[in-house]
């Protein structure tokens, strides 16, 4: 059970009031599959699955591929890895063997990592030694993965470990910070993509081959009607016929058939290519190889390499580098030649029919790279480096002719362990993925998990970042793709430059991991397919014949594609092959595609056969009773995973009543097409779509509860709401992601009306009494940390005593009291918990030794070791805070770590930002007194008054329905649902309102609180869930009259944190120039900024000083004038570059002239 006990309760609530004997209809209750799905999969299961796959499968594969370490010095020597395992996370300090918990790592700035053990076999002299469980480094462990201490723990255990059971996991704790490896979106590997560049008139097919050894990109391009092969390792574009000949297909006819089949049009288009190779006088394989070998780019090899002939060079290049993913065994080029021919055919097809190009943005052509894959790339690189380093060391030792003792290689294993540990840690903590093998240099792979709110953390775990450049102005990759349906959330994307490039997963998605290809290859033949490699183009492209591709590579041929498809799917539905293997037909180029690779997004759908849903009430009943789980539905073939490509083969009904004869699948629930963050919005299907997108961005800034362990954490900055409430109008998604348990907002009674002039431009009027009673009250926690450093010379930082002075109190003048800066400190030199701390006060009275560099000797006269200077941590913010926690611990490097957490409690004030769940944000414009506010017949006074002008242009009808449903919910004492494409119906809500004596419209008879007379209109009045956003006036308010200046330019500093000035920018300056306010300009730009008086010599135009011109050696023409210091600086800097600037003065209004 991944999430623990909480899910049981969740499942129970759905059946509250519904007994087992009650009728269950599939139409209404099939959505109960969804919580079951999430129970199995969890919200961030993709990360965890991928990491588990890395630990359990990939790690072993990597070691298998690099299992041998040999020595150049001693041919007898060998070292072989037999196995690799990852242990459980353990602590590095030895004093205690207690299990280390993630929260301890967070608090103590440790890395949550587990040791990697290998079993090795190596030669020592003449014996072969085996060693088990040799530690070769530490691997950061993903929280809630199989190796994590949290896996399989219930709510009680989680509480004992100081962990939040609702925390999704899926991230790492490295040096105390939580790091997420974002999902990366890429174009799929090892697949042919045909593109058309209309401008250049070029059609090209490209494949990014990716194997463990190599990554390379191969292009087949058409230039002026001729087709070439282009590859990085070949200098020129190679005519395709030449390449095919080099691969051993020497007959022109065979080439023609393999590329064009019997189609006359294709043959005509292609035949021109034969000309080129004959022009080059290449007719045989030998000639082709020689021609090619001369043009292969030489690789720089490390170490001695035997000389090869050009033919060998060409063979090696074709076999290993070009299309590296199609393996060549025993120089049998047939499969690779056919692959190349098929690529060429795709180009030829696209040349004759431009509509046959592929869409790069189509979700089916994309693969998602997850933490596991990225880590495995990194680990393989580090492991290779580790082995090659070890080899060098072994060589070094074995080279020595006489050794005193037998060389034991296992000692080297231990010494190199730091390489892997450090490499992993550095990559995850900096986010720089640099892989030497692939020359890959990627920055920003990891991000700090945002703990602003529960939703922001959750949103981060489902985020997908695209490799596409943000600066390019193309709309294609950013646009909403129809193929995203159900896989990627249509609403949740940021605004601005990353719009459409950063996406989020929909609620019910799964990302596949790699599956074995070999059994599928055998299965294809067992299902009656012919081997494609032995066929000619004549048969391959015969009408009615379909080529079977496995992961994009030609494999077999069938004449009965539909039958093949059906039997393949039947096997999958019976659980004989993995449920994540997809199969679909592409009728455009007569292919049956089977995909087993990882990184495809797929989602479960209910199977429909013969016009009937296979999930019947009987199954749902047993699901409700807990007799079956989601996996049983998969095993029984009631539900299956369908990826984007296979979706194209399916005919999916959204609702059960829409099923027809040809329907193949039934949607589990339509609202799952939205993601976790968009799922918070009630009635999103009634809103204008950008509003939902805005809310997705704002939901992440809402202040609320972030985790059950929020008071046990020490975060750099943490915002918490004092009294968060779960929304009155929930959605199913809210329950599924358990937002109702960690909410971020409060239900406010809202009156939609105009009140005073302080509510224009979306400003809100808040009720003072509501604020008095705790509405919108929030807390801000800030962390300040320091390390008591130990220095090389033995000196160390320390915490000093409180300084005291004589009391100023006249009553007891002899008493010693702490000086004002030290009032918050206790005897231990740390601020006391609960103490108020204001600007300028010390909270850690740290002192550093004066001498930190050299150890004092008897002769040296350096400062002694026991002399200290104050280096206190001083509270700098203007607004006071309280000390919430003080933590004293040791870090990994045995240095004392001190963390101080301060707390501020804030009530909303003028200018604080609030937002409803419909992308409608506003700041508080005025805080009105309770008695001044309007009241309804029942005596209810609104918490918030919202201006009605917010509605017409925004068209957030969902907000109005939320109010209605909320009001009905309050009156009937029930929570209402605003689930997308469903939810409580407006008619039902109106009925509840009328039954309770309210108007059906939600509009109430309201009396003014100022005049006491009734208002002349009815007021839309009821509860709406409001979020307080993190932008608060207190953090932004800033003004200055005089203050600090920058040292270099003597201009006022910039920014609130430096108490900077407010800039009169270019545009403001332009206004003043246009207006002609020259004196104002002079004052703003010079006098109030960096005015400086210089002594200028009128004769030479250079600056002097003290009324003396150093150039002219006279004071004759020296005058004083005021210029900006920056100007003076510029002149002097120019001077230093040998550019002389002279200032010549003239009178603007000269004397004596008229």
């Amino acid at each position, binding site marked *: 059970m991944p999430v623990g006990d909480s899910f049981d309760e969740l499942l129970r609530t759905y059946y509250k009031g519904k007994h087992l004997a009650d009728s269950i209809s599939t139409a209404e209750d099939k959505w109960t599959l969804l919580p079951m799905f999430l129970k199995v999969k969890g919200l961030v299961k993709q990360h965890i699955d991928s990491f588990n796959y890395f630990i359990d499968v990939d790690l072993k594969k990597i070691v298998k591929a690099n299992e041998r370490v040999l020595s150049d010095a001693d041919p007898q020597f060998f070292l072989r890895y037999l196995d690799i395992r990852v242990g459980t996370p353990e602590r590095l300090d030895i004093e205690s063997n207690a299990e280390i918990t993630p929260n301890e790592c967070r608090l103590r700035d440790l890395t949550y990592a587990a040791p990697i053990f290998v079993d090795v076999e190596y030669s020592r002299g003449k014996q072969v030694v085996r060693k088990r469980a040799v530690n070769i480094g530490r691997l950061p462990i993903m929280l809630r993965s199989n190796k994590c201490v949290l896996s399989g723990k219930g709510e009680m255990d989680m509480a004992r470990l100081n962990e939040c059971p609702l925390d999704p996991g899926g991230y790492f704790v490295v040096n105390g910070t939580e790091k997420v490896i974002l999902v990366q979106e890429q174009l799929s590997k090892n697949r042919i993509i045909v593109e058309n560049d209309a401008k250049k008139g070029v059609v090209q097919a490209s494949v990014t081959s990716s194997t463990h050894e190599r990554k390379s990109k191969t292009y087949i391009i058409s230039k002026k009607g001729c087709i070439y092969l282009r590859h990085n390792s070949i200098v020129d574009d190679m005519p395709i016929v030449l390449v095919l000949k080099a691969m051993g297909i020497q007959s022109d006819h065979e080439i023609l058939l393999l590329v064009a089949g019997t189609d006359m049009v294709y043959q005509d288009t292609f035949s021109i290519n034969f000309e080129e190779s004959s022009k080059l006088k290449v007719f045989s394989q030998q000639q082709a190889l020689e021609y090619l070998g001369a043009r292969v780019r030489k690789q720089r090899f490390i170490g001695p390499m035997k000389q090869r002939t050009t033919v060998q060079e060409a063979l090696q290049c074709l076999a290993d580098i070009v299309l590296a993913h199609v393996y060549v065994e025993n120089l049998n080029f047939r499969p690779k030649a056919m692959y190349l021919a098929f690529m060429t055919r795709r180009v030829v097809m696209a040349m004759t029919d431009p509509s046959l190009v592929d869409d790069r943005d189509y979700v089916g052509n994309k693969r998602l790279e997850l933490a596991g894959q990225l880590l495995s790339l990194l680990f393989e690189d580090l492991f290779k480096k580790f082995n090659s380093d070890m080899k060098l060391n072994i060589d070094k030792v074995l080279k020595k002719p006489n050794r005193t003792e037998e060389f034991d290689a296992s000692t080297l294993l231990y010494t190199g362990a730091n390489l892997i540990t450090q490499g992993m840690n550095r990559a995850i903590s900096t986010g720089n993925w640099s892989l030497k093998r692939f020359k890959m240099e990627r920055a920003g792979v990891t991000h700090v998990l945002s703990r602003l709110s529960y939703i922001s953390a959750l949103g981060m775990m489902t985020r997908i970042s695209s490799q596409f450049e943000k600066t390019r102005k193309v709309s294609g990759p950013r646009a909403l793709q129809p193929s995203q349906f159900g896989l990627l959330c249509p609403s949740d994307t940021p605004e601005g430059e990353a719009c459409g490039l950063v996406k989020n997963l929909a609620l019910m998605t799964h990302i596949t991991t790699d599956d074995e290809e070999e059994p599928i290859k055998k299965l294809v033949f067992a299902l009656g397919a012919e081997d494609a490699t032995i066929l000619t183009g004549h048969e391959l492209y015969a009408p009615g014949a379909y080529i079977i591709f496995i992961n994009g590579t030609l494999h077999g041929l069938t004449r009965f594609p539909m039958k093949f498809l059906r039997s393949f799917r039947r096997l999958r539905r019976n659980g004989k092959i993995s449920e994540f293997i997809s199969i679909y037909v592409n009728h455009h180029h007569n292919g049956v595609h089977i995909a087993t690779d990882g990184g495809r997004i797929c989602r479960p759908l209910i199977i429909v056969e013969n016009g009937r849903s296979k999930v019947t009430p009987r199954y749902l009943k047993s699901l409700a009773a807990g007799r079956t789980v989601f996996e049983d539905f998969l095993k029984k073939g009631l539900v299956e995973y369908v990826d984007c490509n296979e979706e194209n083969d399916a005919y999916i009904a959204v609702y059960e009543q829409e099923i027809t004869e040809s329907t193949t699948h039934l949607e589990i629930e339509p609202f799952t097409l939205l993601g976790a963050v968009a799922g918070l919005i009630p009635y999103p299907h009634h809103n204008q779509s950008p509003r939902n997108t805005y809310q997705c961005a704002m939901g992440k800034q809402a202040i609320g509860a972030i985790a059950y362990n929020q*008071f046990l954490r020490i975060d750099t900055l943490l915002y918490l709401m*004092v009294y968060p409430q779960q929304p009155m109008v929930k959605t199913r998604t809210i329950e599924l992601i358990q937002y109702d348990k960690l909410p971020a907002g409060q239900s406010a009674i809202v009156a939609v009306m105009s009140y005073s002039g302080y509510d224009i431009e979306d400003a809100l009027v808040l009720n*003072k*009494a*509501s604020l*008095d*009673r*705790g509405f919108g*009250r929030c*807390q801000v926690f800030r962390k300040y940390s320091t390390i008591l450093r130990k220095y090389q010379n033995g000196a160390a930082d320390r915490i000093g005593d409180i300084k005291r002075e004589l009391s100023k109190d006249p009553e007891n003048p002899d008493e010693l009291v702490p000086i004002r800066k030290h009032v918050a400190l206790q005897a231990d030199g740390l601020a006391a918990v*609960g103490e108020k701390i204001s600007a300028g006060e010390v909270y850690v009275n740290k002192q550093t030794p004066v001498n930190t560099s050299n150890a004092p000797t008897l002769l040296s006269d350096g400062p002694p070791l026991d002399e200290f200077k104050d280096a206190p941590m001083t509270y700098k913010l203007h607004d006071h805070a*309280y000390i*919430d926690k003080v933590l004293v611990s040791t870090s990994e490097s045995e240095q004392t770590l001190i963390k101080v957490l301060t*707390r501020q*409690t804030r009530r909303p004030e003028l200018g604080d930002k609030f937002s409803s769940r419909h992308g409608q944000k506003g700041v508080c414009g005025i805080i009105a*007194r*309770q*008695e001044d506010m309007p*009241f309804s*017949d*029942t*005596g*209810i*006074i609104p918490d918030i008054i919202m201006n009605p002008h917010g509605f017409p242009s925004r068209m957030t009808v969902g907000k109005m329905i939320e109010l209605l449903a909320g009001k009905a919910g309050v009156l009937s004492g029930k929570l209402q649902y605003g689930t997308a494409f469903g939810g409580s119906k407006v008619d039902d809500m109106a009925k509840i*309102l*009328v039954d309770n*004596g*309210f*108007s*059906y419209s939600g509009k109430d*008879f309201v*009396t003014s*609180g*100022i*005049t*006491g*007379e*009734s*208002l*002349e*209109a*009815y007021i839309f009045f009821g509860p709406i869930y409001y979020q307080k956003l993190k932008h608060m006036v207190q953090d932004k308010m800033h003004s200055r009259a005089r203050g600090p200046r920058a040292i270099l330019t003597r201009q006022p500093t910039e920014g609130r944190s430096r108490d900077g000035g407010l800039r009169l920018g270019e545009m403001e300056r332009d206004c003043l120039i246009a207006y002609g306010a020259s004196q104002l300009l002079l004052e703003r730009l010079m006098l109030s900024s960096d005015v400086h008086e210089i002594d200028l010599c009128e004769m030479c135009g250079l600056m002097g000083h003290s009324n003396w011109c150093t150039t002219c050696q006279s004071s004759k023409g020296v005058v004083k004038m005021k210029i900006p210091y920056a100007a003076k600086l510029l002149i002097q800097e120019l001077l230093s570059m040998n550019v002389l600037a002279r200032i010549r003065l003239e009178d603007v209004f000269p004397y004596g002239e008229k």
Partner: protein
Amino acid sequence: MPASINRRNVVGVNAETVTNVSSTDFPGHWPGEDHSWNIKHFRRTFKVKFCRNTPLLSQFDLIHTDAAIANTLRRIMIAEVPTLAIESVYVSNNTSIIQDEVLAHRLGLIPLRGDKDALKGLSWYLRGEDPTPHEPTDEDTIVLHLKKTCERNPDAKKTDTNPDKLYTNHHVYASDLVFEPAGCQIKSFGHDPVRAANPDILIAKLRPGQEIDLTMHCIKGIGQDHAKFSPVATASYRLLPDIRIKKPIRGKAADRFAACFPKGVIAVRERKDGEKEAVVDNVRNDTVSREVLRHDEFKGMVELGRVRDHFIFLVESTGQLDADEIFLSAVGTLKAKTINLKRDIYKMLRKQALDAKRARRAENPDAGEEGDAMDTQ
């Protein structure tokens, strides 16, 4: 009642608008009618009727007065009737998970009660300026204590998971506030000590080893300053609804008509000819949902309204003062305010007259006429 209603005094309740909101009984509005203020007339017509009166809730009607007066009373009840509430919290120890500020805020909002006369006799606590803060005395400050330590229940079974059985003192309730009378308070609050009005307000939850130890100072304040000083949970009024059936509604339509209103508003009576007819029964029960206006079949048959000078007050006390006392206290405050206003106006007028006289003399000691002319301009 309906017969006596002056149609001028009816606020029109239409489907989407409310009309005739303001009163018109002021001089000069109706030609030929005298609406000048008349104490005798007011005394004759003005009525206060109590419908319900319990300590925590009272409902009463104010009939034949202006909205301004009713509203003033409502506003005073919310914002200006003084009560006692916790103002300062001195935390000696608080190891619970609830932070000091939040705890103090929660404590402040707890309604207190105690001997009413003694509370009334309490004087205002004036904070004073910073260098010389005012020392609290027994005349203006009430001191409360709260001390609670949670412990494990030694008798609990090991298998128990219920916190109520596992721990003792793990809930801090408002009833745990302990009054510490000082000086004259010992006598004045002797029979009725200061305590929480609702003893079962949960203040905090504790776990073994956690402790709360605080001293609180309560002072007198008004709702304008902070909502915790407001004596009412709600004090509001609504106008008496008015339903006028213009055409008789008979037969089955009568039942449908009655269903458009809350129970008891419309009665369906049987006429002599055996046909049913809808008649207005108790308009007070109507909630003005305007449901009837949605139905086309009753279009033009009914006119909804509200009586502009009939205010149905609802006052809910938080527990310190009785609901009716709050109202009386509000009336008293209003009276004091008007007296003050009157005095100040007299003062102002006198000063004005004096100033004018002085100015005239100073400006033009011989000819006073011109100065007068200037003034009138």
